């Protein structure tokens, strides 16, 4: 199966997909974890730790998803927009919450 994939995709495609999955997945895990940290109805330190604990799961899920779609562009767009949403949401909550 891997051989079949290899013949269909160039090294660059795979490198591009891996970079998208790992790097954007990492930024996504950070921003979604941050959103969680600010959105959870708990004190800040608990929220931050919960967000961090969950972020590894989110990173793994993001990597899996990014490899499951047919086009790297889909992965790129999907992750970028999720990052924007999470980071935007977190910033909104930060503004609403006043001092962190």
């Amino acid at each position: 199966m891997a051989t079949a994939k290899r013949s269909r995709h160039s090294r660059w495609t795979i490198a591009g997909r891996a970079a998208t999955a790992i790097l954007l997945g990492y930024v996504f895990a950070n921003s979604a974890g941050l959103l969680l940290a600010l959105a959870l109805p708990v004190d800040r330190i608990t929220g931050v730790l919960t967000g961090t604990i969950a972020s590894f799961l989110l990173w793994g899920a993001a990597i899996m998803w990014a490899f499951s779609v047919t086009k790297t562009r889909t992965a790129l767009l999907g992750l970028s927009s999720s990052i924007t949403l999470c980071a935007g949401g977190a910033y909104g909550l930060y503004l609403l919450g006043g001092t962190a």
Partner: protein
Amino acid sequence: MNGAFRQSMTWLHTWSGIVVVWLLYFMFVTGTIGYFDDEVDRWMKPEQGPSAQMPIEAGLEAAQTRLEDIAAGADRWFIYPTIKRSNPHLSTFWQMPTVEGEDVVRGDEELDPTTAQPFTPAARDTGGGQVLYRMHYLLHYLPGRSGYYIMAIVTMFMFVGLMTGVVAHKKIFKDFFTFRWARGQRSWLDLHNLASVATLPFQFMITYSGLLFTLALFWMPFVVLGGYGFDIKRISALAIEFQGQQAERSGDAVPLVRLATLAQQIEADWGPNQIAFVRVEYPGDANARVTFQRETTGRTSAESVLFDGASGERLTKPAGGLDFDANPAFGFAGVMFSLHEGQFADTVLRWVYFLSGLLGTIMIGTGAIYWVEKRRPRRAGDPTKWSFRAVERANVAVIAGLIGAVGVYLWANRLLPVGLAERADWEVHCMFLAWLAFFAHAALRRAPVAWIEQCTAVGLIFLAVPIVNGLTTSAHLGNSIAAGDWVLAGVDLTAIATGLIALGIAHAMRARRSRLDAIDVPALDGGDAQPQLGG
């Protein structure tokens, strides 16, 4: 689950696994041995007798007397009484005040409680089981924290490998009950599945908690920074939020209260043998603080009691500190850490940990072998790429050779001269030199032959461990079994078991090879591309 999704996950599983598989294997071998780090420590210090229980008051009095002699004016002392498996002897640690521009002076000792002096003769200089245990997250020979970072990334690959592995094997539980013996490639996959499914919860626990261990260092900076509005000052102050306001050195000398007296109060509350360690901040200062930490029972955040070190008065906890026990997130992380380390595990559970780690090791090893077997050229005359041969041979040296190198590490502990300078370092050098020799051997031999020869070598090395031990020390099986010293005997007996298993594997490989030769299928005998190694 549709087919395309599973296919892409199978692909991801294969590649996330194979990219880091040798480091993962190294991590699992050394980490699994790490569950018996203290037992290996004990074996590697044959001069020391078995753990001797002693009254806590006597131990603390001895340790305090010694520390007042050699580490007066320290910033902190730690005293570990002999209640724990990991602390067979009364031991101390101290750290002197930091002087600008100089290395911090610190030290540690194991004490004979009757003399309040270090043991004589001193134990040989050895890294013990701790060195192997530390390798599983730090590697070795790497500067600073680089090994830690590498292993953290490897752990993330492992986590992705686990998640995708569950998806990749759609009939995971059906596969669990399928084992096709001696079918070459297929058998390796079955064994890989068997080892994975049998210990899947353990593998998830150990990997996820492994990731959490890296939290403090570097993983998800934006969650922490952003959680506090990117306010660095606020984040620097977090330590106080965690621990509460700490006492500071006053500069006025007041003798430290006798710790043994405080211990009596503690034992009246907690019962006997509950004190994991005693921490003293600024001993001999008017603002000295003494903390008694209770033995953990499955949580990292165990109970502690604070005293004023000058007056001996019991204090309430520092104001503003976080109540770790009551906090659900810290509770979860704490449970994960403590599950990972298994410090609470008694003998039976410790063996369960060890065997789970072993199955994890088998899962990783068979995964690497399966990867090679699957890519083996099918027909005679198919060219084998140099890269295929390199991976195939490196597999031998990593999977079999590393085990042999660990055996050589045990040999080195017994055979290196006791007075050798930097002896502990040389034990480790011997281990890695031996591993290098296994690599050289694998490079020179065809892979199927290398497998058989290296497994045989591993078997002989481990079978000889008790013999080398018996020839060089009195801590041999004859004495240890007679004395019922099962910690000491356990290491020798495990070495024998390891040796027998390795020889068994070598024998099975040899038998399969001669069977294939007897069938004489030319199509399968493609020079270097010798076919599947069974069982």
